[in-house]
């Protein structure tokens, strides 16, 4: 019986009769706890994760040190991978960029891959650099031209668009910037307010709007003397001076009587930065191709080709 007593010792594990499982050896007021082993699948999965962790620590950078971390035999890091990927993309792009700068603009659309690349690049560049003034849909605003339409101040073929983007308009940073200035006919006293009112009626007439017949008649003479030099005899505009077409349905600062009088009296002049100072030639070309594709792009005339 002595051995039997020893068996029931509080701190002695025993085999439970019913389940055949060993107990933990602890007893609380006669209650004993079975020490049921973990399921085998669980234990093996656990061992497998340990083996995986050891392999992982050997292969990848893992243990942090004071300044750096252990390198692992692969030396592979997420940052390193990202840098590699960026380099690969840059390299792939640089080839296309070289091709883009060396191809005449009007021939880019013949190369489907290059064209798609340029348009996609132009679209994202537009969002970053152009949309602040010209609008996210390139729809423009008063004083900022709508790039979707077919009315161009400085020309709407690929090369003209590229030049405008590259050198900008009326800025002091680029000698080749597009430049023109309309005299302030009212503010500087060149025309009287009566004359301005008359010439306004004439502009309303040629742009196919309601007008006063008598005033327009007088205005025609004033127009011929003061305006036709830049805007053309029939008001069709002059792109060499960035002079808008006054006979069409579109006007940068508004086409109604009030807006026209205001513009003739004290003209406003928009400014655009020279983008070639900030962007590469390839980027400027991408933008030119993108803007040209928006719907108003004109064909490059044979004489204008690069």
């Amino acid at each position: 019986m002595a051995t039997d007593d020893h068996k029931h010792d509080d701190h002695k594990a025993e085999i439970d009769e019913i389940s055949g499982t060993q107990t933990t050896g602890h007893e609380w007021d006669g209650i004993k706890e079975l020490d049921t082993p973990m399921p085998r699948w669980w234990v093996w999965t656990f061992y497998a994760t340990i083996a995986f962790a050891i392999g992982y620590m050997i292969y990848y950078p893992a243990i942090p040190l004071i300044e750096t971390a252990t390198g692992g035999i692969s030396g592979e890091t997420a940052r390193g991978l990202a840098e590699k990927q960026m380099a690969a993309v840059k390299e792939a792009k640089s080839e296309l960029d070289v091709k883009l700068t060396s191809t005449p603009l009007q021939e880019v659309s013949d190369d489907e891959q290059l064209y798609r690349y340029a348009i996609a690049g132009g679209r994202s560049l537009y969002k970053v650099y152009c949309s602040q003034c010209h609008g996210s849909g390139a729809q423009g605003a008063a004083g900022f031209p709508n790039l979707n339409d077919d009315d161009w101040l400085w020309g709407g073929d690929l090369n003209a668009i590229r030049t405008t983007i590259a050198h900008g308009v009326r800025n002091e940073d680029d000698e080749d910037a597009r430049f023109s200035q309309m005299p302030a006919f009212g503010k500087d006293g060149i025309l009287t307010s009566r004359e301005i009112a008359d010439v306004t009626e004439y502009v309303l007439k040629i742009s196919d709007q309601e007008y006063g017949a008598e005033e327009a008649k007088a205005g025609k003479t004033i127009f011929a003397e003061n305006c036709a030099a830049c805007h053309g005899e029939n008001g069709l505009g002059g792109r060499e001076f960035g002079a808008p077409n006054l006979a069409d349905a579109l006007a940068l600062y508004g086409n109604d009587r009030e807006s026209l009088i205001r513009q003739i009296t004290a003209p406003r002049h928009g400014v655009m930065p020279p983008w070639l100072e900030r962007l590469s030639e390839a980027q400027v070309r991408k933008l030119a191709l993108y803007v040209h594709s928006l719907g108003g792009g004109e064909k490059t005339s044979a004489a204008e080709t690069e």
Partner: protein
Amino acid sequence: MSAEHDTTVETFLVEPTNSKEYRELYTARKKIHPRRTHGFFRNLKWLVMLVTLGIYYVTPWLRWDRGPHAPDQAVLIDLANTRFYFFFIEIWPQEFFFVAGLLIMAGIGLFLITSTVGRAWCGYTCPQTVWVDLFLVVERAIEGDRNARIKLDAAPMSAGKAAKRIAKHTTWLLIGVATGGAWIFYFADAPTLLNELIVGEASFAAYATVALLTATTYTFGGLLREQVCTYMCPWPRIQGAMLDEHSLTVTYNDWRGEPRSRHTKKTRAEGRPVGDCVDCNACVAVCPMGIDIRDGQQLECITCALCIDACNSVMDKLGFERGLISYATLGEYNANMATAGARLVDRAGDRVWDTSQIKPSLVRGESGHISKAIAHTGFSSFIRPRTLIYFAIWSLCGLALLAALMLRDRLDINVSRDRNPLYVTLSDGAIRNGYDVKILNMKPEPRSFELYLSGLEGGQISLAGAAQSQSDKLIVDVRPDQLRKIKVFVKVPRNKLAKSRLDFEFVVQEIGGPEMTTYQARFESPSQ
């Protein structure tokens, strides 16, 4: 009567390890060693195995000529190009409802089959059943039948045992590799992929899939076996809702077998009643699920019907009619139990038959043949409102899918209008809208289409990029089996703008062919 046959029937020492009385909660699994059977259902299962495995392994190798612009594999799930080819049918992702429809049909079909012939899917065609059967063939070929396998399991490890074990597991793994290998052939050109697999040039995904399916086939078919059906599969639980008293299930006919006795001759000589069951345990020895069918319908039973074969061969030896274990409906069983004199009693809350009351004399007449009063299931049990409704739904799904397949277009157009800007005013006062037009040529041949406007007075269409060349229609070439996205501009002169919103249609018409389709679109302009 046939007591002299007693000695010719082998009695098996076997426990139905998965029967409720033997299977306690949380006990480790006891390995089952099913004995080989011969008979009608075994042969039927061989045939089903041959057909299902044949379909699975051969299908990816069937060819189907679709011309030079599409793959020639009869069944191909082309994930990279998002196309599904099935013989003469080609499905694009937006036509996936065909697959969904087939899955609904499969579901309803499973209901229909289960409500008529019980768990026939489980017993004959379920991949788990088929592969376990195949793995058992291997096991039997290498280690012998039931008794030899039990002896081998109990024997200490030796060179001979190790050789058998290695041979068995290697063959299982090879079957697993073949299973996983066949699977990936459905997703790529089979001969090309096989070549790449062998020379080690296939993608990581291909090898990983083969490895994964090898592991699952080996584990499920070789190691887990009946546990997959009992513990992992939800279908045994669902079947309860599908079966009713008119569904066929594998049934031990107590009304004929009870009272069972191993000593028929002696019992009969003593003048006590004795049924047809000689308690030889053949039905238990062959059961791959480790149950005793004589305990009644159980969740574990996959109705593989092998116990029917086993019992029938015993009945043949005894000179009794076949069918002590048979496919029977619950309705028929209950009627026959009543005929045999059994009574329904309450036991632990359930209404169960008390088999001790069965009088074999009520089942067998003076002639010794089974009485005419005994009911037998006819095919009429298949025809009842429930099965007719399942069949009607199943057929309607099928007919609807067929009609949809016959009437579907192989040309489609999708249009989305520019919203930024909504419209553009041009220098002559006309208004222009921009549209992204997607034309889907769903035939494996290059085709040209005319794209024009209908119902938009004065509207002119032009392709973006083609600077200002307005026309009435565009010619669009689309490559075989491809979608082409083009940007078009539509312009309406100022004097034709009656309303700020004009509804019109884009029409795409096949050149030199009959196909034509339209898209309802809208033209926006500033309010007048």
